[in-house]
């Protein structure tokens, strides 16, 4: 009888130990996902440099500034719009009367309808510097994107430029480059700042991610006012 009781007590003890270690292991596994779950704009120490420090991005900003006159002409008279610009004119005109929430949905869906072009990236990445070919990221303007399409970072920048045309402030938007855990590759999305300092991400699947942003490890972000280094914070 005594041996039997001793056996039961020992078994319960080992079961408890097993349960505790399993729970600890689960908590440890979930820990990285709970860190920096949402992209935040209000981290001043993340500021790294002026936008001009990233030449490819600075060049795209200049090119877009030149192209704004084409968009302005099209907005003034429909006759001056060609091809894709007619559609863009409708989006800008009709979108102006929507609630901010719907404006974001409209822009997200309009841009996500554009053609996905993987091959363009391969061609644009090789930049010859001092006789050496180096891989560099390519950024595109809104008009380039509307006519030619692009890949994920081009969707993000096109949404950025389109929302700028709609009157959104540059300080309230950033193109965020992150490590996407689901595809194990670098990905870019547009983040929109909310009044509480949090952000909404405009995704390629037409959703606007407001809280669950755990699949990303944010690396850096850009807009026309600067570059933010989110790895520096760690």
């Amino acid at each position, binding site marked *: 009888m005594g041996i039997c009781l001793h056996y039961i007590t020992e078994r319960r003890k080992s079961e408890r130990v097993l349960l505790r270690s399993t729970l600890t292991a689960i908590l440890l596994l979930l820990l990285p996902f709970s860190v920096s779950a949402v992209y935040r704009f209000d981290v001043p120490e993340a500021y790294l440099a002026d936008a001009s420090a990233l030449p490819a991005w600075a060049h795209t900003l200049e090119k877009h500034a030149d192209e704004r006159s084409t968009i302005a002409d099209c907005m003034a008279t429909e006759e001056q719009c060609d091809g894709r610009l*007619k559609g863009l004119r409708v989006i800008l005109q009709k979108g102006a009367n929507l609630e901010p929430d719907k404006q974001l949905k409209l822009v997200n*869906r309009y841009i996500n*309808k554009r053609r996905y072009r993987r091959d363009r990236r391969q061609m644009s990445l090789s930049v010859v510097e001092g006789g050496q070919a180096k891989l560099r*990221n390519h950024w595109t303007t809104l008009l380039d994107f509307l006519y030619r399409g692009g890949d994920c970072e081009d969707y993000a920048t096109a949404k950025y430029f389109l929302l700028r045309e709609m009157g959104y402030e540059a300080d309230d938007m950033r193109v965020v480059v992150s490590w996407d855990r689901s595809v194990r590759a*670098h990905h870019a999305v547009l983040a929109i700042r909310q009044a509480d300092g949090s952000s909404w991400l405009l995704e390629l699947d037409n959703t606007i991610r407001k809280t669950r942003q755990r699949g990303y490890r944010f690396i850096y972000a850009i807009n026309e006012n600067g570059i933010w280094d989110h790895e520096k914070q760690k």
Partner: protein
Amino acid sequence: MNKIIIAAIYLTASITWAQDADESEVDETEKVDLRMSVIESIVVTADKTPLVVTSKLDEEIDAILDEAEALEDEESDE
């Protein structure tokens, strides 16, 4: 004599402080340059294609998108 010694100490301290400040500024610039080169070398490669929406989600938004699309189609047909 004391005044000269105190002045010399002040001078040496201020030169040392100025040099330190210069060095930390250089360090900071180097750090930024280093991070910038790392950032520049990150190539966005995720092959995430956008989702094609076939179902109607929001009447108001759908109407605007349809109008924009119709104008673009019209242009490409010409």
